[in-house]
């Protein structure tokens, strides 16, 4: 079984996505053997009020409960986010995606910590994309830097009881997030979408330092081809136990939750 923790539905503001509908995304997943995807709204990244986009996503995902696991996009600096969170829980959302640089708030600000706390009480996973697009190709309208890993480290340290998925990031090896002795709780897991195998050995180093229960299969579909992540698994060729953990078990553990 393969679970992709880094997927999206709906249109993106700056580029056409070929597989933005549930039907099309499921076709792509089928062709690559991906069974389940954690999906959030790509439109919500640039919407001021994200809640209608969350509702659209819920409608798209609803007919496919065994394949698409909905994650909400909520901006804790926007009016009414507490109501939106409750509504999303009622709609069956299992996690949140946070876009601090697109939505102009700090990860360790009071409102963000409040959101993390409330989501944690409701057993939601917090998915934190380090980037949406490569900054070199961003539209003239926006100039959104990657989320700095030291801010991510500060958040995971501040909320040891929360459970974080760090997706679309790299460079962890040079950060406390990638070190055994980094002094951080083990409340975060890291997806493979942008990690290097072999040449810079980022995946190998993280497996060594953090252990096999800390890595996740994530592709960034439909922004990105799923195949580069699949190729990483191929060339890494981990032992079956590690393979199963990365491909599905690590993602499903937190979803099923204790």
């Amino acid at each position, binding site marked *: 079984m393969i679970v992709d923790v880094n997927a999206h539905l709906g249109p993106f503001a700056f580029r056409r996505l*070929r597989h933005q509908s549930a039907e099309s995304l499921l076709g792509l997943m089928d062709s690559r053997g991906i069974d389940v995807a954690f999906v959030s709204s790509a439109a919500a990244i640039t919407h001021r009020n994200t809640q209608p986009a969350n509702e659209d996503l819920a409608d798209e995902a609803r007919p496919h409960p065994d394949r698409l696991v909905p994650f909400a996009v909520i901006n804790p600096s926007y009016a009414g986010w507490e109501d939106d969170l409750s509504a999303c829980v009622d709609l069956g959302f299992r996690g949140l995606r946070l876009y601090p640089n697109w939505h102009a708030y700090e990860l360790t600000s009071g409102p963000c910590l409040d959101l993390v706390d409330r989501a944690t009480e409701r057993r939601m996973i917090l998915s934190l994309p380090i980037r949406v697009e*490569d*900054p070199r190709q961003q539209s003239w309208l926006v100039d959104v830097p990657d989320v700095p890993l030291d801010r991510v480290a500060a958040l995971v340290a501040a909320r040891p009881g929360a459970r974080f998925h760090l997706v679309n990031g790299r460079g962890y090896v040079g950060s406390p997030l990638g070190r055994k002795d980094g002094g951080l709780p083990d409340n975060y897991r890291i997806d493979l979408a942008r990690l290097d195998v072999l040449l810079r050995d980022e995946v190998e*180093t993280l497996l060594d330092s953090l252990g096999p229960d800390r890595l996740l299969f994530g592709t960034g579909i439909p922004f990105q*081809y799923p195949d580069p992540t699949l190729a990483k698994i191929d*060339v890494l060729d981990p*032992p079956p*136990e590690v393979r199963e953990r990365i491909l599905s078990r690590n993602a499903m553990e937190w979803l099923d939750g204790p």
Partner: protein
Amino acid sequence: MNSDATPDPISRRDFLRGAAASAALGAAAPPRPARAITPLPGEIPVIDCHAHLHHHSRDGWQADDLALIEVADRLGIDRLCCSMLTPRRPASAEGFRECNRWVAEAMARHDGRVLGYCYVNPGHPQEAIDEIRRCVEDHGFIGVKLYNEHRCTDPVVFPVVEAAIDLRVPILHHAGHGHHPYPGQPNISDGGDLAELSRRYPEAMLICAHVCGGGDWEWTIKALRHAPGVRLDLSGSVTDDGVVEYAADLLGVDRLLFGCDMSMTAGVGRIRGADLDDEAKAKILGGNMLELLGRRPS
């Protein structure tokens, strides 16, 4: 190319492969696939049109170069077209000569695996021309690598282009088009500049480097549409869905070249993922580059 430095890649690779690792993880690693890409019809080799060897001032350059070959083995890449850049740029003539000397050594060391691009800074015109002739004629280099010292439409670049035309070798030109300034690269060329250069020199074999690490790839592909003399190198770390198909639609598969620019699974993954038939993929993975390399009379 990315220059993230991580220590000692060999030992970490062994972690997943060696006996200690198997014991620690409680399972033996199954054998690796010999080739991760399906072999091409008609024995066309898979050629990475854009790779780099490591400058010898870098600690562990030997291990890093060997790792590159090992990655190529595991991904089924038969040949790597490599250049070496000076760590500091603009490159001095002595600096690029030294790099090319080391590339020539690597070509001899990895016979047939490593094909060399001669890197020069056109700002040293006579030295650049002499170096290109020496590298191609005496040492069998397959092309010229230009970086960002000068925009490719700057007349100082023209004698280099003329030398490459004369020698019938391609020029791989660093390129990028962002909608925000490229930090530290005031003279970077983009697809539009390469198209303009190609209109001036239609017989030049120009390769626009790393469309998947060069900013707005849709802009680059559109800018190159009416410049048939420019090939597109698909390398780079950005794995955006649809880039290969869009390039194939607008430029035709004959103008597309497989490359990694050291982002190996990205380079291979985007070709595997592209919705194109095997024949088209074979051209992209090696056929088109083989055709370019074959233009030089042997």
